[in-house]
């Protein structure tokens, strides 16, 4: 136990802890929108498309996160545009973006001379090496999204739930849907450092489906999935440190484990209650 507390003396671990907490809160807000609108697959496309940006940034010697952000925003708004126009099959458009992004990423990484040191951390996440700058970026973005949700939850939910009716009511549906696309893209890119491209989407979905075992009200799903996200991420973070496994894998493993345990308890309680009736 003392070992657990002693690692808190390390700055890198405190950074990782803060990153896990903030990422959980950010993905609770954004993930609730993703799960409610059933755009998990779209978000998967955005995530993998961003790898193209990472590869390109490596090749040109730029910041990989910047490359990822540009690719993610372009693909997110592109998919939203395609889905609003409805001329192309949305799932085909996503599949193309998904594979094109990955292909571009691999090609550029391969063409980059020398060793690409952080590549693994983008694929699998390395929360233990999160720096101060990234942490401040994460904090600033989380605050911005929280404020946006605090002020505009009503139109955000309505333009997701029934865009046609919202348009008739005079809501700027396009504005809210595009803004949410950009927020999703940036949230994904910022969270990639913690859990990696391959697993980042689980952070935006598993706490939400765990929360939805208890509530089906958009506004209540957010704090509850933040709670489940925090507990799962912290468990994963400690295990990742003590057993020296990639943070992404450890966090997602615990989030999933937590879902099944909670689900089992809920089902069991329901059975007991029914028997009592």
């Amino acid at each position, binding site marked *: 136990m003392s070992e657990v507390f002693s690692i808190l003396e390390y700055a890198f671990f405190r950074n990782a802890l803060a990153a896990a907490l903030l990422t959980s809160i950010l993905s609770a807000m954004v993930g609730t929108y993703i799960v409610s609108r059933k755009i998990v697959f779209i978000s998967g496309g955005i995530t993998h498309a961003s790898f193209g940006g990472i590869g390109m940034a490596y090749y040109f010697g730029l910041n990989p996160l910047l490359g990822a952000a540009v690719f993610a925003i372009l693909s997110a708004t592109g998919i939203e545009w395609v889905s609003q126009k409805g001329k192309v099959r949305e799932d085909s458009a996503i599949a193309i973006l998904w594979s094109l992004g990955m292909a571009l990423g691999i090609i550029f990484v391969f063409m980059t001379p020398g060793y690409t040191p952080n590549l693994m951390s983008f694929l699998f996440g390395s929360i233990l090496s999160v720096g101060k700058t990234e942490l401040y970026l994460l904090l600033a973005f989380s605050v911005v999204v929280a404020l946006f949700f605090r002020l505009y939850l009503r139109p955000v939910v309505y333009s997701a739930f029934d865009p046609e009716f919202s348009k008739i*009511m005079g809501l700027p549906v396009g504005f809210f849907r595009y803004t949410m696309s950009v927020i999703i893209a940036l949230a994904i890119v910022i969270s990639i450092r913690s859990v990696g491209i391959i697993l980042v989407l689980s952070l935006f979905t598993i706490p939400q489906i765990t929360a*939805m075992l208890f509530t*089906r*009200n958009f506004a209540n799903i957010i704090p509850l999935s933040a709670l489940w996200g925090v507990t799962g991420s912290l468990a994963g973070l400690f295990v990742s440190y003590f057993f020296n496994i990639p943070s992404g894998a450890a966090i997602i493993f615990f989030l999933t484990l937590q879902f099944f345990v909670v689900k089992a308890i809920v089902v069991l309680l329901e059975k007991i209650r029914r028997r009592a009736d």
Partner: protein
Amino acid sequence: MNKPLLKLKDVTTGYFSETVLRNVNLDVFPNDFVGVIGPNGGGKTTMVKAILGILPLFKGSITFPLGKPRMGYLPQVSSIDKSFPITVKDLIGQGLKSKSVLMPRLNREQKDRVYQLMAEAGLNKFAQKPIGELSGGQLQKALLSRAIINEPQLLILDEPNTFVDKGFEKELYQWLQFLNKKMAILLVSHDIGTISPIVKTIACVNGDLHYHPSNQLTEEILKVYNCPVDIIAHGPVPHRVLKEHNL
């Protein structure tokens, strides 16, 4: 002569390059109750969307000679995502405009109005429940409450009688006849048999539109209008008066 509330003049519209409606003319006056009938794919919903201003016109015009009315809209229930995590209270509240664009919240008065409508529709105990837990009839009541909460002058309903039982249907029609005292209603339905007794006039949409200034439909009229619908006569034993015929 009175001015109409809504005037469609030579309206031609559709999706992308596909024309669905051709040269449609229709006047709707305050306190009208128009039953819009016609076959599937005939353009009933397309016309509704054009009137609501969410579908651009290829040709013609839609005007409101008495000034732009407040409009209430009940979409086809199949367009509603029942698994979306939204409560009945919030669904009904969608029909209200917030006073401020920058701080889009409902005020006290508007929140009270939501509860008042839920009480009238008998949905009080579902206020905090997700819409996925409602029955077909209850969902239609909630959608109708959302449509009328803004006290519209023109109420447009797209197939409000799908997935509901006969008991609810009767209740719905009584409700609509009550609402008709305060607003004009455009009721879209593929089921002419059950709506013809409650509407005042009938418009048949099948690519174009034919207006019939009464609610009595005869086989003769339907033949002229080229409108393949079934009529179930009301009597001790329901029987089919008109068979579906070819275009």
